[in-house]
């Protein structure tokens, strides 16, 4: 994806508005509260299932419905594509490490940014941790001697 995409005057405003709706949803669903996430993981309240699957269903309608109208996105000209990553052992290893972190803290990236928005300044500990972790893995992977094929992630 090239920086040319950002030249459309509505690109950044649309990204911001999308983030705004996304963040409002995280606040409204209480997913920005680590206590609520932990109560889900401890089987005390299964409500969080509705957040992830409700969001996935709406996203699925957009992903599979978009191509019925047009093949490319209006602001970038990019072809509509499903989010498909290759399955390898990293998905399981990384997912496992993320799972331990999520279960220990009750925070995940999007919800942590939203948590700051609802006034939870204590979450800065968690956000600082996420940057440290992202840097550690980047440093480790960049300095490994062997050449790997580039991977992307969201």
């Amino acid at each position, binding site marked *: 994806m090239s920086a040319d995409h950002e030249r459309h005057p509505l690109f950044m405003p649309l990204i*911001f508005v999308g983030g705004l709706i996304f963040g409002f949803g995280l606040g409204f*669903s*209480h997913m920005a509260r680590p206590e609520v996430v932990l109560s889900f993981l401890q089987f005390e309240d299964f409500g969080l299932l509705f957040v992830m699957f409700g969001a996935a269903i709406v996203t699925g309608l957009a992903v599979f419905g978009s191509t019925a109208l047009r093949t490319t996105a209006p602001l970038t000209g990019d072809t509509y594509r499903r989010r498909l990553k290759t399955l390898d052992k990293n998905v399981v290893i990384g997912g496992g490490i993320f799972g331990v972190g999520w279960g220990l803290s009750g925070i995940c990236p999007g919800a942590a940014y939203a948590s700051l928005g609802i006034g939870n300044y204590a979450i800065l500990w968690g956000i600082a941790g996420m940057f440290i972790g992202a840097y550690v893995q980047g440093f480790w992977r960049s300095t490994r001697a062997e050449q790997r094929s580039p991977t992307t992630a969201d």
Partner: protein
Amino acid sequence: MSTPLPVAMLAELFPNGISHYAIGGLFVGLGVAVIYLGTGITAGASTFLESTLSYGSTLSRFQQYRPSRDWRVVFTLGIAAGAAVYAVTVQDGIWTTDVQPWRLLGGGILVGIGTRVGKGCTSGHGVCGVGSASSTSFVGVVTFLLIAIGTAQLVQAAGVSP
């Protein structure tokens, strides 16, 4: 007076109701859908960590995200702003967590490593990936969900609270 069994079971599974979870989830999906329909981008939240590190680090691992780093900052500012709108309109003031700083910091470090190695987080795999019917994302979600449940139960059993 006895409550019908299915209703009692539902009340037990969802002690705080389901409406705010479901409505919040619809908004989360709508935010992703708006960006996708306009730009073709399936926006996940965790790549912001690596892409933002490219402003201060020359490591190739981060520099590969240069083309997307600006809009990812805007997306993240939007997320925080959207939650702030919720805080002033619905939540009625700020809210802070009682979860201890060491849990947030330690958990955050593992989240930072894990989401980047595992190619996605709860929004990248859980929302965009599952919404795309990606088998890789199903594997990712099942893995982190099961491990998170086990971890949270262990921490609770060890008596750590909050």
